Structures are given as structure tokens and as C-alpha cells.
């Protein structure tokens, strides 16, 4: 199918540039014409390229970028010259003829060769909906808004899982013309509602692909839900998995300040906390080394230290308590427990039932984007482990 696209593209571009060339009176309206003219001046170059594509790629002499830029400029300059010098106009015409010739040759050659496999758009058979086990009534329904940290109301999240996602202008125009813009819906979360009180510790359990990370991203504000509402009172500090999101060319010290800035803290505050962070992460010797030279354990120690020492109001932990060596794990567990007594709201995602039981009071169990159980952490964790083990036995 590819050659059709290219040819269509060339034709559209050629038509556009011809329209521009044969309507000199349009220059009366400079406001409209400037963006239009500048665009169409690029188009001849681009169209020549598109036409030559099959031809030139096969020879493999020139790289893609070099070719695009140089040829586009060349053609544009030629257009300028041709417009002012009548003798050169014939040269330009010859070039245009050549363009069409190459387009046709390329078209013919392509027709003989490749055939693109038909993309299968068959929908996967609808998997059965997971059964709801038990969802307790909202215990904080009567509380004032001020006492609530997070309120999630009927939240659903949809993604477009189209097999060939269009991410460039050329394909978009072509697919739009051919009415081929497909969308395949995938609901990562379906109608989730819950409330978290200030200072509460909530656990989220579920197998891979249950929608846990999506839920966390929604709470931290990185994504907006397709349907529903999320209200968050207070600053959210997400603890990124394995210290992701550091600038690898930056040293540990620079990264601490950058992360602090990203979380919205001031410079003075960060200078205040800096020593404590370095001390807890045990990275004193390496703090002026670029993070790209850190081991993965060191990176996650740094991430953990920054996020927990900044005294967040709401802390989001995504599978992070297995960070570092045994000694650091114990230290981080201790640190987490110190949050238990404090007024920090914690949302913990974990596969480990024991961690959830130790650190959380309530828990949610997600399955295929649906909430199947919500209630006392012990109960949820036990039922979850039972289910996982029984499925494993089968």
C-alpha cells in the first residue's frame, strides 16, 4: 500500500504548489499568503523527495535527513530563480517533468515488489469481567472535604490501542483522506471510586496489567481521567520506580536539587534538606559523580531518600520497598513505619501481601481495571493471596 500513499502525497503537494504559482493576485492578501506561501515553497522540495524515495533508497547512497533538507532547499531556490528569470523557467518545468517521471517509475517498481501484510484489526474476544468479591461502603462518606486527602469518583480511563498509531503529519493527512484513522478502545480502569482520609495508609494490590500504575498516574496528576473526577488535597510526591526520571548526565547533587524543583520546593528548602538526603542515601562519596555511573541500587537509594525526606503530604509508592541491599531495605522499612505515626497519607502498591498488611490499614484489589475488593488490609491481602495461589495450583 505504501506507494499509493507516496504518490497521493506527491500529487497533493504538486497541486498546492501549482495553485500558488498560478495565482499571483493572491499576494494582495499578505496576511493569508505568508504562512501559505512559505509552506508551499517547501512543498516542491518535499514532493520531489517523496517521488524519488523508492529510487534513492535502493541505491543507499544518501541518508534520509541529508537528502530531505538539501533537496528541499535546492528546489526552493530553483523556484525563486525560475520566477524571476524566464529562461530558467523551462529548467524548472523540466525538473517538474522529471519529478513526475521518477514518481511514475518508482510507482511501477514498487507495484511489482512488496506487498504489505493486511493489518489485522479483529478485536480480541472480550475477556470475561472479573467478579466483584466485596466492596465495603465508603467509611469516610460523612467527613468534611478538608479531612479528605484523595477522593476518586467514578473514574474510568481509556487508551487508544490502535495497532498502527499515526505519529507523523504525512501519514495523518493520507489516512484522513482515506478515512483510515482507526481507534481501538482499551479501558484500563473502569468506574473506580474510593476516598482516602488524611493520614490514612491505603494499599493497592493486583496482578500485572490490573491498572495499578494507571491509577497512581491519575492520582499524581500526570494523566487526566477519561471519565470521572479526582480531587487531591495537598502536594503529591510520587516515589518513582527504581529512581526513574533522573538526568543521567547530572551528578547526584544536581539531581537532588532538580528533583526538588520538579516537586515544587524552593531552593532554600532544598539546601536545608540536602545533607539529610545525602546522609540517608549513604552516597556521600559519589554525590558529585554523574548518575549514569551509579549502580541501579544507588540510583534507587537516592530516589527513595529524596522522596521520603521531603515530608510530603501524600506519598505514592510503586513497588519500591525492595530497593537496595538488605541493610538499606531494613532502613527504608523503618522509615516507612515512621510515616505510620505521622500525618502523611500513603498509597502503596505492592505484590507482597505481608508489606500491605504491615503498612496499610485499608486496601484495594484491582483486576483488569475493575475494583473487585475493598476493605480491611488484612482481609484483602489474604483473599488476594488465596486467589493467586489457587490459580497457580490449577
Amino acid at each position, binding site marked *: 500500500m505504501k506507494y499509493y500513499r507516496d504518490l497521493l502525497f506527491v500529487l497533493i503537494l504538486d497541486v498546492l504548489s501549482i495553485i500558488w504559482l498560478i495565482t499571483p493576485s493572491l*499576494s494582495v492578501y499578505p496576511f493569508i499568503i505568508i504562512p501559505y506561501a*512559505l509552506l508551499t515553497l517547501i512543498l516542491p522540495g518535499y514532493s520531489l523527495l517523496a517521488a524519488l524515495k523508492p529510487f534513492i533508497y535502493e541505491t543507499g547512497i544518501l541518508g534520509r535527513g541529508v537528502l530531505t*533538507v538539501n533537496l528541499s532547499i535546492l528546489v526552493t531556490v530553483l523556484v525563486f530563480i525560475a520566477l524571476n528569470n524566464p529562461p530558467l523557467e523551462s529548467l524548472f518545468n523540466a525538473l517538474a517533468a522529471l519529478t513526475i517521471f521518477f514518481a511514475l517509475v518508482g510507482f511501477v517498481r514498487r507495484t511489482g515488489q512488496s506487498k504489505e501484510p493486511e493489518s489485522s484489526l479483529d478485536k480480541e474476544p472480550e475477556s470475561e469481567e472479573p467478579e466483584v468479591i466485596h466492596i465495603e461502603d465508603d467509611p469516610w462518606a460523612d467527613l468534611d472535604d478538608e479531612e479528605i486527602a484523595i477522593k476518586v469518583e467514578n473514574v474510568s480511563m481509556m487508551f487508544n490501542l490502535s495497532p498502527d498509531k499515526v505519529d507523523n503529519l504525512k501519514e495523518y493527512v493520507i489516512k484522513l483522506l482515506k478515512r483510515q484513522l482507526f481507534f481501538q478502545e482499551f479501558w484500563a480502569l473502569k468506574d473506580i471510586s474510593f476516598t482516602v482520609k488524611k493520614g490514612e495508609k491505603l494499599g493497592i494490590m493486583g496482578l500485572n496489567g490490573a491498572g495499578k500504575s494507571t491509577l497512581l498516574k491519575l492520582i499524581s496528576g500526570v494523566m487526566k481521567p477519561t471519565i470521572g473526577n479526582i480531587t487531591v488535597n495537598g502536594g503529591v510526591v*510520587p516515589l*518513582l520506580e527504581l529512581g526513574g526520571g533522573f538526568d543521567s548526565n547530572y551528578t547526584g547533587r544536581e539531581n537532588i536539587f532538580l528533583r526538588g524543583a520538579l516537586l515544587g520546593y524552593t531552593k532554600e528548602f532544598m539546601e536545608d534538606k540536602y545533607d539529610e538526603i545525602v546522609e540517608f542515601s549513604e552516597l556521600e562519596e559519589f554525590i558529585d559523580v554523574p548518575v549514569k555511573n551509579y549502580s541501579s541500587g544507588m540510583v534507587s537509594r537516592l530516589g527513595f531518600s529524596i522522596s521520603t525526606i521531603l515530608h510530603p503530604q501524600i506519598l505514592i509508592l510503586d513497588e519500591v520497598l525492595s530497593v537496595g541491599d538488605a541493610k538499606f531495605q531494613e532502613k527504608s522499612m523503618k522509615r516507612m513505619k515512621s510515616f505510620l505515626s505521622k500525618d502523611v497519607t500513603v498509597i502503596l502498591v505492592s505484590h507482597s501481601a505481608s508489606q500491605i498488611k504491615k503498612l496499610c490499614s485499608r486496601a484495594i484489589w484491582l483486576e483488569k481495571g475493575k475494583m473487585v475488593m475493598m476493605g480491611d488490609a488484612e482481609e484483602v491481602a489474604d483473599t488476594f493471596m488465596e486467589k493467586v495461589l489457587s490459580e497457580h495450583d490449577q
Partner: protein
Amino acid sequence: MVLKNILHHRFFENFLKYRYLLTELVKRDIKVRYRRSVLGIFWSFLEPLLFMIVLTIIFSTLFSRSIENYPVFLLSGRLVFMYFSQSTNGAMRSIKMNSPILKKLYVPKYIYTIALTLSALVTFLLSLIVLVMVMLATGAPFTPYIALFIVPTVLLTVFNIGVGLILATINVFFRDMEHLYGVFLTLLMYSSAIFFPPDVIPVDFQWILTWNPVYAMISLTRDLFLYGQMFDTFTLIFATISAIASLVIGLVLFYKYQDKFILHV
């Protein structure tokens, strides 16, 4: 009342909250750009200087009749254009470049885009030193009007932020924008009369210069540094309108699509 509402808008409150982040990001961009090179920040002096010397050798005899001080003419145009191209090019990539952190942390996304523009501004201000040096070396007259250079600088910065926001938004959805824009910049350079006098362009095509916002900025700068005179009124008005229009379009477009960025980066 309306003004108060506008000032309390999320945009401005966020701006205050994240101004430390903005400085950190600007610092990072400059550091990263010069960390690898031996000459460091001196590149921003040396590069325009070398460019100017080469082009002066080639073109000064050709254009000496119509341009009094070719080095200053060339450099003032070139510096303004470099600021525009550097900042918009950077801003265009800003969202894609920061996508790893964008996926993890909530930060107003325009901060990333504006940071790139501002880091280019720092380079631009530094390179103005080169311009002053060249003016001294060529014995160009210094007039009090030079103090007004803040006007084109602010206009250009506003214009660049707007264009940067527009490009960043488009680039998230269409990744071939980067290639197209590279070509567009080359075209723009030739239609901004940077190294040739504006009257070289035929009368029929003079409108390209008249309605080119980048050329308007260049000609404002030249009024001050080269001709030592007050701005041309029409050019000033046109530059102001295009700066404000670009900022408004940029902000509206960016705000309309920013929630979808995360699904495409």
C-alpha cells in the same frame, strides 16, 4: 476585578510556584550544552564571530555600496535569527525530550517549553557582547538608542515563547515536524535579509520582508545598533502584534491539547 481574576489564574500561580524549577531547567540546558566542549560558554562568543568574519570576507565588497558597516549589519541580523531558531527548535523538542519525567511527575508542562526559550535568551544576551565588541572594533557610532535594545529583546522573547508552544504541541503528535521545521528555518533565513541588503529582493516580493515577524525584529535591532535611530513605527507595531498573537495562539493551542501529550510522547 477582571485583572485580579486573571492574576489568580492557575497559570500565574503555577508560574510563581515553579519559578525555581524554571531556573533549574534553564541552568541545566545551558550546562548540558557546554559541558562537553573545551571552550565552554566561549562558544557562544566565538561561533557568531567566526561566522561574521567569513561572511564579511565573502560579501562585504559585494554589498559595500548599500551597507555602511557590513559586520554590524550581518551580526545583528544573525544574532536575532539565531535566538529565534535556537529557542523555537529547542522548545519544539522540549516535551519529547522530557517525556520520561513527564510520565512520572506532574509539573505544568509549559515550564519545560519556556525553559528552553529562556536558555536561548541567556545565550542571546551573552552574544550581544560580541556585537558590542564588533561595534567598537569597526568604529560604529554608539547612540543612546542602544539602551532601547530591551524592547526588541522582550518582543522577540514573547514571540519565541508563543512559536515554541505551538511547535511543541504539534511535535508531540507529528514527529516529522522536526524535519519540516528545519527546512522552514532555512527558508526563513533567506527571507529575513540577514546577510544581504533588503533591497536585493525584487519589488514584487518585498511583502515577504514586510510581513515577516522575524525580519521585523531584526530591523528593530538594526535601527538601534546600526543606524542609531528610533524604531520605525510600523515595524514596531507589527512586531508587537505578532508577538502577542503568537503567544495567545501558542497558549490556547497548548492548553487545549496538553492533557493528551502523555498519551503520545
